[in-house]
């Protein structure tokens, strides 16, 4: 396994290129090893300490008003965030439909990470504690004219379904969401109708399939069709991998009737747990 080419010419001058060629693989490997060693040694430095989390939590407690949201980035630090700030968070906040109705967002990011909820917003406060960054984003909250989820008992259910629609805390797309859960019979459509709804300029909602194990075992999708005053405005297909899927339709302000038509698509769609949440907004 000798080198193919000598690193110095016959006249004795050093051939740098040939020398580099001979040393390069070894140096690359040593470099990779050193990089790994440094990564192991520095593993703790990218981790927030208890004191750093404590400092950030204290700032949030001092500055936050009850109608403000707390989010964490990247998402996998969420359990740690809730350990330090869970006393400031309700189940409704953690299982929210979206972030629009909050008047401000407190974002705690690790190593510069940002949460999708704050995209497009400008922060008015920034604070650092080790690898953690706290940012506060004021926002104009959405004005809700009718919260279908909160008013779920007002909805009149009809059509073939398992049990009755109910307000439920569910895992949808591996996230917690408070939603109205409806389980239509296979290949059937169930309807949840709300009458005399105070409509604004739009209806915003989300739909998805609850429960990872039924999503694994039953692959057929669910479908939501939104009817306002008898007219179908949108149809959303909720597949096993589509998560918490947003929909939005424009409406005419005033009083109207709204129906959510929920279909378990296909004869194999048994126990298709369709979950949705929606708000009429000004």
């Amino acid at each position, binding site marked *: 396994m000798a080198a193919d080419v000598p690193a110095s010419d016959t006249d004795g001058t050093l051939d740098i290129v040939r020398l580099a060629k001979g040393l390069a693989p070894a140096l690359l490997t040593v470099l990779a090893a050193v*990089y*790994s060693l440094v990564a*192991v040694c520095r*593993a703790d430095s990218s981790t927030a300490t208890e004191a750093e989390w404590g400092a950030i939590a204290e700032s949030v407690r001092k500055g936050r008003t009850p109608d403000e949201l707390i989010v964490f980035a990247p998402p996998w*630090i969420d*359990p*740690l965030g809730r350990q330090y700030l869970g006393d400031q968070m309700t189940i409704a906040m953690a299982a929210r439909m979206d972030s629009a109705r909050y008047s401000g967002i407190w974002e705690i990011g690790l190593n510069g990470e940002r949460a999708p909820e704050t995209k497009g917003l400008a922060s008015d406060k920034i604070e650092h504690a080790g690898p953690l960054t706290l940012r506060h984003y004021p926002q104009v909250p959405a004005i809700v004219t009718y919260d279908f989820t909160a008013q779920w008992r007002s909805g009149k259910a009809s059509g073939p379904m398992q049990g009755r629609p109910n307000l439920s805390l569910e895992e949808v797309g591996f996230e917690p969401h408070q939603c109205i859960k409806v389980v239509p019979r296979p290949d059937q459509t169930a309807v949840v109708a709300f009458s005399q709804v105070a409509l604004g300029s739009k209806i915003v909602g989300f739909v998805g399939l609850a429960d*990872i194990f039924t999503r694994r075992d039953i*692959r057929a999708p669910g479908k939501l069709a939104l009817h306002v005053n008898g007219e179908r405005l949108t149809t959303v297909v909720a597949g096993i*991998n589509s998560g918490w899927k947003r929909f939005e339709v424009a409406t005419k302000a005033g009083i109207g009737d709204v129906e959510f038509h929920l279909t378990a698509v296909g004869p194999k769609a048994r126990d298709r747990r369709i979950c949705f949440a929606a708000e009429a907004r000004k």
Partner: protein
Amino acid sequence: MRESWRNRVIGILLFVFASGLVISSQRDQGIARDEIVYMNYGTRYADWWIDLATGKSGTTHKDTITKHFGGKRPTDGNREHPPLMKTLFGLSERLLHDELGWTSQTTGYRVPTALVNGLLVCLVFFFVLGIWGRTAAISSALLVLFLPRAFFHAGLASFDAPVVTFWFASLFAYYRALRTRWGFLWLGLCCGLTLATKHNAIMLPAVFLPHYAYFVWRKQSSEGPRWRRLWDGLAQSRPQVLLGLFAVAPLVLIAIWPWLWFDTITHLRDWIGFHLGHVHYNFEYLGTNWNAPPFPWHVALVTTLFTVPLATLVAALTGFVMIVVRFRRGERADGDGCPALLLFLSAGVAMGPFLLRTTPIFGAEKHWAPAIPSLCIFAGLGLVWMANQARDSLIVAWPKWHRGVLRYGPIALLLTTTIGAAWSETLHAHPYSLTHYNALAGGAPGGASLGMNRQFWGYSARGVLPFINKFRRSDVSVPVYTHDASPAWGHYKAEGLLGDGLPDAGHEKAGIRKSKIAIVVHEKHFARHDILVWEAYKKVQPSFVLQFDGVPIVSVYVRDELLDK
């Protein structure tokens, strides 16, 4: 000391070091769910063998065998997995814990895996030694030992580390069988032991048959008609290896597995059929939860890229390229028995099914682990080749430098840094190695951000036991929702890791409702358990979060009534 004796001493030292390190380290590892199953059946199998050895009447009766090893349903008697390691777990626990009292019960069950892993390190040393020399042999052996994931599996009473050893032993035996008359018996024995360890052994012929065909083709004579030349090649290629593979190996399997002593074909069909139709567990890979085919074709490659220490990967790639280049130049890169081809085929066959997109991917690296020795051997070869290249370049460039420094400096630097990096990564990752990812992935946080699986089988729950113990009450029981650690709970108590008065509250919603403390093991598909606990405890705040390098792995929720006291 004669050279052969020196090598034997090195081999023995490697075995002792590797086994001892794993036995000592596994004490910090939590108990994985599947281990409990294997431990329980291991005890049952060991009882049967002890009955047989002591001449208890009726032991070999069909009903007695069925009671110990089988049953009507597909998982009765844990008959979906062959018995070799389970039997060793049971015998080891009986000896080391029950009889001698040398180890804890869990360690007693786990010692066979650690010893078998030590054997792998030793076998890699001797295999490489005979072909590529001592430096490559020591390097390869140590790189096999210092792999964070493999080191973790070597500490479990499970089959994933042992099947690597027996798979590799089969390669070694096959390689030797090509040169010796009776070597096919060793080949049959090793393949039989592999079959008796884990079902992926049935792929071994896919390693040996192409290699053997190439070997025969190379041995064929240069004259006469083609059939005659090939016949000569076959005659010179120890055709009895086929006998070892297809006759001796199945007999060894049957001898070890009493369940196959009757209705053999049916029981074999049931065993393999179970794995061909295996349920798809949930598994996170690159941010997506996978539980149904088609799976991404690159799972085995990317996971290997992110879990094997970076310098080992670079060295392996270099070693592999070096072999290929030399082969293309027509140089004898790997000796007469084509061992490099054998290693390449071994890795390819071990990983191959995962390229098909239909093979379940849960378990990740442990399912294609037999590929790993090949990778480490290529790494060892790569290190030696790079050191030689560097040495020769330095000697030519600076001929007046101290010869000793030039000769030994590069290899010393390469071995120290590469093996040192692998060692440090392995020790750092322990005992949460399934959460660990290499520097290329960005460590554990990088792995979490990439959406790579963080753990499985609830083993990491052991790390929250000290916190839970703080809530013991002398006057009242404090039930714990133990989530994925449920099967291990009794063992933790028996080992003294968990105090009295902290019973398992039960499963799912009923268990959570009854519990005062709840743990949630963080895997993507376990998000629902957080939600169930929030609903019951009326809060989202865990009291403690176990983390590895800042990545949450287990959350512990405590009811307010306990916190207020």
